């Protein structure tokens, strides 16, 4: 080590990196907030539903965590919990990616569906999980969303979708993934025809084939502050147009301003907002 090295400015605390801290709050004692760069006790963060108490940065939640803070305790009845993906294209390393996601999340694929009560309202619910291959939609996600919507029609229940699907249509299932966009949108059309409310909550991130199908078709579309929402990923756009994107591009606030989101809601207020909306539709 030379003398000069002693004077290099180092970060006070080691950062977990923007990406990984977005994905999951590590098991350590503290987490650095990518929003305000402050360090938060994990206990405090957990208590606050993984929202930074200082700057309100919304950390990503797993589908289970999301369910837990959304539904009335003990009310969940899961649909198709054992449905899992095949590898119809023999796509290289798809099986190992699936296996990794399964052990990481404890889920069989990127969506959990079922019925529950939310603020006392009986509803069908679907939550996608970014930690499972980016929350991307292949045959299983498409099938589970459609089945959930069809059950809602059968049972005359509203549908609540909470999306964290930055991965869009899942590349590893090729054309079959693409077709899930049509399949889920067709089911959303039936839901609408049946006169049942459909509420979507967009969380960070929701992009591509999921944004361009069922996630954009809610009667009401809510978004968490700062969530990245769009069709093409920022990197793809930058490569296409060969210029830097403006600050805040494709964030929830941008979508609100352009008319594609009804309302931005803080995580702590989501259930109350759903309750207000359901009371308007259903009471």
């Amino acid at each position, binding site marked *: 080590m030379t003398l000069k090295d002693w004077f290099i400015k180092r970060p006070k605390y080691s950062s977990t990196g923007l990406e990984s801290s977005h994905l999951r709050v590590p098991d350590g004692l503290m987490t650095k907030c990518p929003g305000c760069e402050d360090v938060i006790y994990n206990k405090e963060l957990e208590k606050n539903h993984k929202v930074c108490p200082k700057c309100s940065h919304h950390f990503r939640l797993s589908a289970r965590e999301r369910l837990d803070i959304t539904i009335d305790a003990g009310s969940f009845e899961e649909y198709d919990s054992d449905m899992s993906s095949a590898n119809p294209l023999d796509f290289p390393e798809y099986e190992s990616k699936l296996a990794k996601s399964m052990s990481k999340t404890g889920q069989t694929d990127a969506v959990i569906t079922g019925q529950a009560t939310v603020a006392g309202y009986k509803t069908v619910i679907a939550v996608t999980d970014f930690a499972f291959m980016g929350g991307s939609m292949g045959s299983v996600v498409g099938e589970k969303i459609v089945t959930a919507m069809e059950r809602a029609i059968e049972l005359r229940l509203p549908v609540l979708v909470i999306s964290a699907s930055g991965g869009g249509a899942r590349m590893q299932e090729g*054309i079959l993934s693409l077709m899930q966009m049509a399949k889920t949108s*067709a089911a959303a059309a039936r839901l609408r025809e049946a006169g049942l409310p459909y509420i979507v909550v967009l969380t960070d991130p929701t992009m591509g084939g999921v944004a361009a199908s069922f996630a954009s078709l809610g009667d009401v579309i809510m978004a968490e502050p700062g969530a990245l929402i769009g*069709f093409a990923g920022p990197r793809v756009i930058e490569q296409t147009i060969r210029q830097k994107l403006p600050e805040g591009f494709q964030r929830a606030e941008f979508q609100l301003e352009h008319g594609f989101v009804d309302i931005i809601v803080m995580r702590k207020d989501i259930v109350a907002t759903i309750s207000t909306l359901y009371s308007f539709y259903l009471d």
Partner: protein
Amino acid sequence: MVGLIEIEKPVKELEGKIAELKNLAETQNIDLSEQIGNLEERAEKLKRRIYRNLTPWQKTQMARHPLRPYTLDYANALFDEYIELHGDRHYGDDKSIVGGFAKLDGKPVLFIGHQKGRNTMENIERNFGCAHPEGYRKAMRLMEQAERFKRPILTFIDTQGAFCGIEAEERGQSEAIASSLRFMSQLKTPVVAVIIGEGGSGGAIGLGVANRILMLENSVYSVISPEGCAAILWKDAGRAQEAADILRLTAVDLKKFGIIDEIIPEPVGGAHNDCEKTISAVKRAVKRHLGELSAMTSEELVSDRYDKFRRMGVLGE
């Protein structure tokens, strides 16, 4: 030569030689008929060998061939009449999606398709066939009319994908495609889609929710381009050839997966080698499917389309 792609080169070389010999025979007045005959036979054999065994990547190149018939080439040749209509009534007119009323052997249909450009000027005008949200909104506006006046809808798919740009996002590319998918799924009129070249992801399926989906032999349909897939898998878009093999994007693959209903064969050497023959093959197939669908009630058409997409997908054991 304009638009010549790699696979075509050996054939074109041989054909060039034949032309030279013919020219020589004529101007010098020598009999070369035997040599010419031999070469012609060789060229024919070579063509068959090459075009019968195209790899997925070669098919991708054929699908993108700049001389391949485009949507408006079909419009001009397929119909007795075609009147193009413009604009989404909200923002503007997207020239990468064209549409209008047409008469197919006297029968009115609504025709809609992606339109690419054949040269730089045209491509600037057509945005390389990559539509903005207003393209899909125009399509929906026209489809709503077709439904109201009980006219069948014919969509031609030929795009790399929906446009990825700032304005496309500002105007809601996701919402436009999602709405188009939902809207098409409910149409109470027959819908036939033909993939004539490139079926690129969301931009393609945005016009693709049909009762019958047909595909030209050398067209491709995929969730992502081979280049995009290679860039994600190996951080190297140059390995597109390998990615094309993996993606199962050819007509034969899609037929196996139950995504498409029929493969329309192309002349030897591809659609552009004999546009007239290609267009009449497309016409025959389209008319046959429209004929079959015309026997169905509007309720049957809607549930037929729903069930068709409902079945798509492969689940694990």
